[in-house]
């Protein structure tokens, strides 16, 4: 094992891993993060904590991670490179690790344009690949990005994101290869609504042997309504929601649409379980954390392994 990460242990055991996520509150409401995290107890192996998601200010990811850790659950510290430079990012990695947080996810983050502070400066001192390199270098070489030694280096199990559906499609496997080369231990993908295209991407991934170098967790987001399906299709950049999925959601009465969304999620998991190279699932139930245990249960992924 490279780290003490529970997620690493589950993945190394060969079991399909399950992660989910919690968006921290937009205010000093620690009880909110506790409520959300409690809903995920015993049904996931680790809980991603988003970092100012959609470029809106929230409780800092590391602070929310500590709250989750204190509940004896396992947080995944998400870090975007949008909001702070390499000094602040490395400081936060050390700080989080000092509180027992041992798993993180390196992403570039949504552009401030999308959030409620579009006037903010965009930092991007590093990009997601360079942050990955930095976190891995801290662990493996015990040095900072700038080259100086670290006194007791943080040992993070380091993940990255991948969007198999964004353009240019032909570059998407190469971009993953780059993240693997940068040292990614695991990958969490964008929400999958187009499994055919995902499988096509996975074929490319296997073609390069990347599935043997990195654990890939397939992203699943249950849809609550036909409206959400249309929104995801038309408004969220880089999201691939085929017409038939929208039609399927529209084909049932409004009060039954949440159940239809869950069904689609469970069917997707069932199908993707069979795809060689898929090591688990990342279930992003946006403001719908209470449904995660049901999805995991219905997908036959309970109980979660003891490691």
């Amino acid at each position, binding site marked *: 094992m490279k780290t003490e990460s529970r997620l690493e242990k589950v993945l190394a055991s060969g079991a399909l891993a399950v992660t989910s996520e919690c968006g921290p509150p937009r205010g000093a409401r620690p009880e909110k993060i506790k409520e959300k995290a409690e809903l995920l107890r015993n049904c996931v192996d680790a809980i991603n904590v988003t970092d100012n998601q959609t470029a809106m200010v929230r409780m800092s990811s590391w602070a929310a991670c500590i709250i989750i850790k204190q509940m004896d659950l396992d947080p995944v510290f998400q870090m975007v490179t949008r909001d702070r430079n390499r000094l602040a990012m490395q400081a936060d990695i050390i700080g989080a690790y000092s509180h027992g947080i041992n798993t993180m996810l390196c992403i570039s983050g949504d*552009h401030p*344009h999308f959030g409620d502070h579009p006037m903010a400066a965009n930092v*991007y001192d590093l990009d997601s690949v*360079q942050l990955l390199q930095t976190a891995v270098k801290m662990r493996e070489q015990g040095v900072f990005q700038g080259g100086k030694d670290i006194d007791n280096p943080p040992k993070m199990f380091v993940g990255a994101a991948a969007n198999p559906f*964004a*353009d240019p499609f032909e570059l998407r496997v*190469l971009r993953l290869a780059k993240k693997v*080369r940068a040292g990614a231990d695991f990958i969490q993908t964008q929400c999958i609504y187009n499994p055919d295209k995902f499988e096509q991407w996975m074929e490319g991934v296997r073609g390069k042997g990347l599935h043997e170098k990195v654990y890939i967790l397939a992203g699943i987001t249950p849809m609550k309504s036909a409206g959400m399906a249309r929104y995801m299709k038309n408004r969220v*950049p880089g999201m691939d929601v085929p017409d038939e999925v929208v039609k399927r959601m529209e084909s049932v009465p409004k009060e039954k649409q949440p159940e239809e969304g869950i069904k689609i999620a469970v069917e997707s998991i069932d199908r993707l379980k069979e795809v060689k190279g898929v090591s688990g699932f990342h279930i992003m139930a946006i403001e719908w954390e209470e449904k995660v245990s049901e999805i995991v249960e219905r997908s036959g992924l309970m109980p979660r392994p003891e490691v």
Partner: protein
Amino acid sequence: MITAVRKPMEEIIACVSPYDRILLAGCNECVSVCSVGGRKEVSLLSSALQMHFLKQGKTLEIQEVTLERQCDPEYVEELVNSVDSADAVLSMACGCGVQTVAARFREKPVFPAVNTAFMGASERQGVWSERCQGCGDCVLGITGGICPIARCSKRLMNGPCGGSTKGKCEIDTDIDCAWQLIWDRLKALGLENRIEEIMEAKDWRTSRDGGPRKIVREDLAS
């Protein structure tokens, strides 16, 4: 070239309204090429200001001068005679020109009439786009001649983010995805493999992050 756009008329009026005599200084370089601060624009702004103040019952005396280059002290020296008979200078040059004038005439208020925008290139008549951020360590040789620092909204150095859609940037469909352009160009050059090479964390010292920059050419400096 350095591009600029004229400030809103109200802002310019507010700057010059306390004065009776102003020197309106244009520049024949970049701002002239992007049609914002050359001889012609100086003349237009001068008329517009005079009209405005005439309506208010005030005569604003305006001297129009367009220098060859406002960022060069040698040319700024040409203002020596005219500046004496002005209460303030209104410059239509980029920020470099405004500062050169302000540094030369310390006791004369100097106001910018334009907002300096970016280093860009002309796409077609009347359209300019940002092309360079002056990072001080050019990567165009490895990115197929397209700059990810100036042209990717997140200045990503290692390929497109997950929001690249049909060749466009997620923040605005009028913006090309820089990494789509880079990828297309690398393919055209037969250099697809290059996309897999990691571009290491950039040393921003050569950029503005290293403090205000200066070039000293020993062979030329006097």
